[in-house]
């Protein structure tokens, strides 16, 4: 039996457990796959931050509660600022990669039209405009993350040049 027929016979089970199945078709570790994983991890980080942020900003109703929650947050200054710096990086990556996804996924820009796959061939999506766009996202993210980090750590007085 060919590998293709074996795969066809598998029950259509998704979820993480599919990786335990040796017959499950493997996909390549492309740059887009890494971007997908990072997009989800940064998204998870941001949604849990958002819920905490709504709770913390709920203390803005009076000066006393505001200063008490601020002094609690400032207990471990290095930890707080490093968390904020990681959050900044997560938001910049998620936002810029999200703009790429709107262009590529939602609007279908830069992935070309379907065509007959005549081997040996490289998928159009791997040699079209969307790949350089991903490198642009990575470059802009790194620049914004580092520059923002220097500004942030200097502003809160943890580093000084």
């Amino acid at each position, binding site marked *: 039996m060919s590998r293709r027929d074996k795969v066809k016979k598998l029950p259509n089970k998704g*979820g993480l457990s599919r990786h335990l199945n040796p017959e499950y078709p493997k996909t390549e570790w492309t740059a887009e796959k890494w971007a997908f994983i990072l997009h989800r991890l940064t*998204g998870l980080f941001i949604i849990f931050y958002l*819920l905490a942020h*709504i*709770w913390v*900003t709920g203390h803005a109703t009076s000066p006393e509660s505001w200063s008490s929650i601020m002094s609690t947050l400032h207990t471990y200054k290095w930890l707080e600022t490093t968390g904020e710096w990681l959050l900044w990086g997560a938001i910049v990556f998620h936002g810029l990669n999200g703009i790429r996804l709107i262009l590529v996924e*939602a609007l279908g820009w830069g992935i070309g039209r379907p065509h007959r796959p005549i081997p040996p061939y490289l998928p159009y999506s791997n040699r079209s405009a969307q790949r350089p766009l991903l490198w642009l996202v990575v470059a802009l993210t790194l620049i914004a993350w580092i520059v923002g980090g220097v500004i942030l750590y200097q*502003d809160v007085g943890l580093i000084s040049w």
Partner: protein
Amino acid sequence: MVRESTLMTLHYIAAAIMVVVLTIHVLMHTPVLEKGYEVSLEYERVLEHYNVAWLDLAILLYAALFHGLNGLRVILIELHQGPVWEKAVSWTLLIIGIVAAIYGTWTLIEVV
């Protein structure tokens, strides 16, 4: 029940809105629109932010909650499938979203 394609379209629309609204929100805590990050967290500055940018914050609150919780829902129903699981995930996240939206709206009304 809302169709998945509708939710995904709204997911993209909320993302596009947040590009503008979240940029303004972040810039209000940087030297671009403020003296600096530490200064922007003083109580008087926070009150002024709420009064100047309450519309920005309101749009951000609803767009971010929808986008974030829908994203979490998509991740959770890709990890595991089944009618019970999918219903439980949807309802739990909907309740979390409504509670957070009400709390955020209450904060906005109280402060502004």
